């Protein structure tokens, strides 16, 4: 048993090793120190990347970490989970005819140093006497709470799960971010004075009215809902992708993985599920997607990674039924799909061809077809945009002094950790200003 769990730890170990001091130094020296650098523009939190890299080169690692934290309190997570190819590294001027600077890995080097030497951000402002409730301890909530705490506000985070960190803790596969990294980051936020109340479900254990009464402002950082249903026969035997990943992080030794696994969907979560299945022993893993590789939502580098892992892809297939034998799934019946005119997503609409049923064998089926929009908006009577919570430029919802950030407001653009962090930061500034204004107006009277 022990050796089996050791095998699992090895199979799910963080994919990229930390840079050695030498490698970091060589890479940092390669950075040109661009002025008004495109990497900084491309980063949603606009970390001053050349600055933190030059500080690595000059062996000022404390200053390097401070530079990162100044723009992004969740630098350790972002260094690991950011799709750097689409962001900072994708914009690096050296990419055109050589190779871009390994910005993500250098950031991780600085963040690891900060963790190892406990060089964490500190509170900058004097206590303001203001209290703020943040609902949800995912990246957006942590970022917002941390920034507000730095400004001197008293922040309490309410989290329904046992552990804080949201997707960083539960939803990012360990290959990219080990649980401990996410938890240490929440401890860092805690060290700024933020109170964590875990195991408290918003809407059940605590209501909005209660929070509004007790706190000067409420920030909703509630993420998205569960995976939508496919509406097919025997769907109850299909495993939810996020639950599959969560199990791989919290109790990998108990995770049952089939020999022949199908993952429905072709986003980044689907690739993550397929990767976990493959790493934990599945002999064959097939991603089934109703469109083609041109339309799928996973990043190109994730697609490349999946193929290198030996994951197969079956395009233009629409699941229609789970085939069962003795109460166990044995296959997925699909319809062949033809692509029609573009739908609301702008992608060609999949048109299942009647009578084209075929069967793909599988003894385990996982679905990762996105997440439902936040159901909370309706319950609270908040205005929505395309099902997401509507906010103004200052992240305030249709209710005064109730703010929303992160995936639950992401009506346009791709949801990502780093975008959530930026929301949290900008919302903190906005809330801070509004609170200051209200104080000023009170004093004016």
């Amino acid at each position, binding site marked *: 048993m022990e050796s089996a769990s050791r095998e699992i730890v090895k199979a799910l170990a963080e994919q990229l090793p930390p840079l050695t001091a030498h490698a970091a130094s060589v890479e940092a*020296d390669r950075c040109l120190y661009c002025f*008004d650098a495109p990497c900084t523009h*491309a980063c949603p939190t606009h970390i001053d990347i050349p600055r933190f890299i030059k500080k690595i080169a000059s062996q000022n690692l404390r200053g390097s970490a401070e530079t990162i934290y100044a723009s992004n309190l969740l630098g350790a997570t972002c260094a690991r989970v950011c799709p750097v190819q689409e962001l900072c590294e994708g914009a690096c001027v050296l990419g055109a005819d050589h190779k871009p600077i390994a910005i993500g890995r250098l950031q991780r080097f600085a963040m690891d140093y900060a963790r190892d030497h406990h060089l964490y951000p500190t509170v900058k402002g004097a206590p303001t006497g203001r209290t703020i409730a943040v609902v949800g301890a995912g990246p957006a909530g942590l970022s917002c709470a941390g920034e507000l705490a730095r400004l001197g506000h008293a922040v309490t985070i309410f989290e329904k799960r046992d552990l804080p960190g949201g997707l960083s803790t539960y939803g990012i596969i360990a290959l990219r971010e080990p649980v401990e990294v996410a938890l240490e980051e929440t401890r860092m936020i805690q060290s700024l004075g933020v109170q964590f109340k875990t195991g408290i479900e918003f809407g059940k254990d605590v209501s909005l009215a209660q929070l509004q009464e007790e706190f000067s402002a409420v920030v909703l950082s509630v993420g998205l809902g569960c995976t939508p249903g496919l509406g097919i026969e025997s769907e109850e035997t299909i495993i939810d992708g996020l639950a599959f990943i969560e199990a791989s992080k919290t109790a990998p030794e108990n995770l049952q993985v089939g020999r022949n696994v199908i993952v429905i969907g072709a986003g980044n979560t689907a690739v993550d599920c397929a990767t976990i299945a493959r790493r934990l022993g599945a002999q064959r893993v097939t991603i089934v997607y109703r469109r083609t590789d041109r339309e799928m939502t996973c990043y190109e580098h994730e697609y490349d990674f999946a193929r290198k892992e030996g994951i197969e892809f079956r395009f233009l297939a629409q699941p229609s039924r789970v085939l069962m034998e003795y109460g166990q799934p044995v296959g997925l019946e699909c319809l062949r799909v033809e692509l029609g005119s573009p739908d609301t997503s702008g992608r060609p609409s999949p048109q299942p061809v009647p009578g084209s049923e075929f069967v793909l064998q599988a003894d385990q089926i996982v679905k990762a077809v996105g997440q439902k929009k936040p159901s909370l908006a309706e319950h609270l009577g908040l205005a929505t945009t395309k099902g997401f919570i509507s906010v103004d430029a200052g992240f305030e919802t249709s209710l005064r002094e109730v703010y929303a950030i992160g995936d639950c407001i992401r009506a346009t653009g791709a949801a990502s950790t780093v975008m959530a962090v930026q929301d949290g930061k900008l919302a903190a500034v906005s809330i801070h200003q509004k609170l200051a204004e209200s104080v000023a107006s009170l004093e004016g009277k």
Partner: protein
Amino acid sequence: MADLRINFAGIKSPNPFWLASAPPTNSGAQIHKAFEAGWGGAVWKTIGAPVLNVSNRYGAWHQGRQRMLAINNVELISDRPIEINLREIAEVKRAWPDRAVIVSAMVESKPEVWREIIERIEDTGADGIELNYGCPHGMSERGMGSAIGQVPEYCERITRWVMEAATIPVIMKLTPNITNIVLPARAGVAAGANALSLINTINSIVGVDLDSLELTPSIGGKGGHGGYAGPAVKPIALNMLAALGTDEIVAKSGIPISGMGGIATWQDAAQFLLLGASSLQVCTAVMHYGYRIIEDLCDGLFNWMDEKGFKTIAEVSGHSLHRVSEFKNLDLSYRAVARIDAEKCIKCNLCYVACNDTAHQCIDLVSPNGSLVQPLSYDVRSNGRHEAIETRPQPQVREDDCVGCRLCYNVCPVDDCISMVELPSGRDAVTWNELSTQQTQVTEDWETMKAYREQVGIHIH
């Protein structure tokens, strides 16, 4: 086919590359190995007065990951017994008759002591003698090395003693730790030296250790100035070499010069030759990478000479000296402006920040839609590689305002991206020298200068 052989003041070697008098030429075994690798000659590490050495004797200047752009040392002259040195010199010369074996010497400033060492060196069969008037540390405190080289009269007097005794070619080595390098060179000419060599090492302190707060390197808690050498000193060496080549007395004497100071590649070597050297000495690059670098020094130089049509080293030697001039003789009407090749530009904006912060503020940022933009003007919510790349402005030179300072050209990290383009200035060629003799007032009075500028159309913003 280029011929790399040289005859330097009567000292012959199959190529112009000699190991300089330094640790790489400390023993016979080392020099055997160096000659096997292909070195044309070696100047034996200085022999003479008795010495004792210390540990931590080499410091170094690193830039980023590039190690040893320069080395700093407080090693003294050879600490091996003089008899052993002399015996090995004789053995090496016997084994390698076609290579140049030169012996560097430094003794107390007494004629009889110098006479004795000269005679003992000549007994080994060595091809020549180099007089070490250069070491800036240790020996100078005992009245030798640079203590001699810094006083032209001492150089001349001691070299005269040597020339009276010597029957083989004598090279007088100059220290760069002097205000005017020409004066000791002229002293060497006056004393009848057969050749000159330069530069010895430059006085330097390499740094301070930020943990211990001691000097780097620390010798039991203390340190001091040492001799600086290596790639970082090359421009200083080239200037001093050119100063000799353009000095009327030194140039007219026809005295050959052995050039050294930071030669690490064949390109460096070619530049020393072009500015008047006719033999070359190398030390730091060998201490960094070993004797094997001789292969590309010869190969690269040979290929370049072939390409340029140079048949012999003598043809190359001094070829660019006529290009060396002084500011007063430069054409004030020559105009060049920087031009950025938008196709090659990677938009790092290093030219922009250098020009705008520290030079003449004539590079603009032009957005893809053609409008001028300020740096850091994107919206805080803008992100992603596509937006960053597609909206990234292009640096562009306002040529009318460009003074042609060439700073952007120097900072640009892309080969051949920024070029200095010669443009007609619309003014007649004129030098400061001409101006100051023909229109003296212009060069002495700001108001007249202003009028002159208006008259010829020089606008300075």
